């Protein structure tokens, strides 16, 4: 397991918003989006939509899904699964844990599919 990155207080990312941790900072070489979902939990996916070039962090968070702002593909924040066309490939997940009020991201630590 990779080392956790402390993203700061849970209050730094409003519910329904997301923050991008650039690839050179998170160590994976790929941008990671950390979402504060409407269920109050935090989730992380690779930021780039698996369909075309787009930032999922710029998308619409609905419940525990994110809708891509460009072509409206939806991804499950929990599993990364592509929920509708035009995306068909799952987004990579990364573990996020809230510890003592801080959001801890574990890059390269996938979340087990739970759908």
């Amino acid at each position, binding site marked *: 397991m990779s080392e956790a990155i402390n993203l700061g207080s849970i209050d730094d990312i409003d519910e329904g918003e997301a923050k991008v941790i650039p690839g050179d900072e998170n160590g994976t070489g790929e941008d990671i989006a950390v979402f504060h979902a409407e269920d109050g939990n935090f989730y992380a996916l690779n930021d780039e939509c698996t369909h075309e070039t787009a930032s999922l962090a710029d998308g619409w968070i609905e419940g525990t899904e994110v809708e891509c702002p460009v*072509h*409206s593909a939806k991804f499950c924040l929990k599993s990364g*699964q*592509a*929920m*509708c*066309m*035009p*995306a*068909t*490939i799952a987004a990579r997940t990364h573990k996020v844990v809230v510890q003592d009020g801080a959001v801890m991201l574990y890059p390269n630590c996938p979340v087990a599919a739970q759908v």
Partner: protein
Amino acid sequence: MSTTDSCPSKANPAIGRLPRPASMATNVDVSTLVDSDGGMIDRSIYTDRGIYGQEMRRVFARSWLFLAHESQFRKPGDFFTTFMGEDPVIVTMDKTKSIRAYLNSCRHRGVRLCRADAGATKMFTCTYHGWSFDLAGALQSVPNETAYPEDFDRKDWSLIDVPSLATYKGLIFGNWDPNAEPLEEALGDMRYYMDAMLDRDPEGTEVMGGVMKWELEGNWKLAAEQFATDWYHVNMSHASALMVMSPTGRGPKADIVATPGRQFVAPNGHGAGFPTHPKSRFDAGPVHEYYDYPALRERLGDAAVEGPMTTGHATVFPNFSYLPVNGSIRVWHPKGPDKIEVWAWILVDKSMPDDVKDAQRLYNLRTFGPSGIFEADDGENWSEVQAISHGFVTNSVPLNFQMGMGSEREDGVYPGQTSELYSDAAGRSFYRHWAGLMNEPAWHENTGK
């Protein structure tokens, strides 16, 4: 360039009997409006009334146009009324069991002679004054005939014949050009692609039920060109429909989106696109189970079964299109530059058992019927394009047809030139052929020679 449509037709001497002033039919040179090599189209070709009139004279009056399916005619007197461009025609079976087609306009005062969609008759009798024509188009009865001049001869007032008629594997086409290139030559390599729908069954095909008709705001070329060339829209426009049709019903499948495929590009404007992926089939279950694929491979060849017989699309220039898996054949009838009337038939293989035919029918309605989940997406797009395109600035901005530029080649598998599945190659060819016809005087024009 200015010409007149006053040259009497060899087959129909009544056409052009009264010479017209040349200024009534002004033709424009469309060369700058269609840049097939650069992949750009001027939007005026979808909106301009003058260009539309020129299309009627130079595209529709000289191209092979789909009229009906042979299975619609079983006995002499069976008839079906349709349009060639905006010209109404009666298609019927005469006493010798030959298919005939006539302009559906009484020679007396021009009213539509037959107002029914389809049926069976002995004579076509005008409801206005009672002139009556037999199945061979001959004028048989003129009420109060003695009041006409002595030299009045009924023979001079026969129905206007569609001089060129031909069928290809059940499909009846007509052409107003008495010296039209034979249909089979005009279809050329397109026949191979059509056979994947028309020749699966040694018994052939038949249409099921009536004709479904609906209107769309939009220029006829938007629909015809899309069916020739445009797989590109599928994953975007039909995303929700594809989710509904997803084979497992559980999620989007990469097999659908990333399917390989080819696009046939005919020099004379026909086009067809099709996946070449064995799993790219959305048949109704019972239809899929009915097919004996090894036998079909034997009959049509592996490439036809793996390609054009799958979930594809096609247009026979100018306005006949079809979808093999959906069992849909349709005509995009032009109704002015801004309107299309879609006439769609359900096509099935004759040998199919009734329950399989019914499954095909329901599948057709669900996907590409008038309220089909895919059909609605397409109509919405074309209508949206047309709705704004009369704006001056909007109309002045060309459209892009540059995908797959230069990708056409002979691939050694599929006949003729083919491009990638995702390509505008057949669209560019469609418009190149269209422009060629638009710029050349047609058979009925007095070229001053």
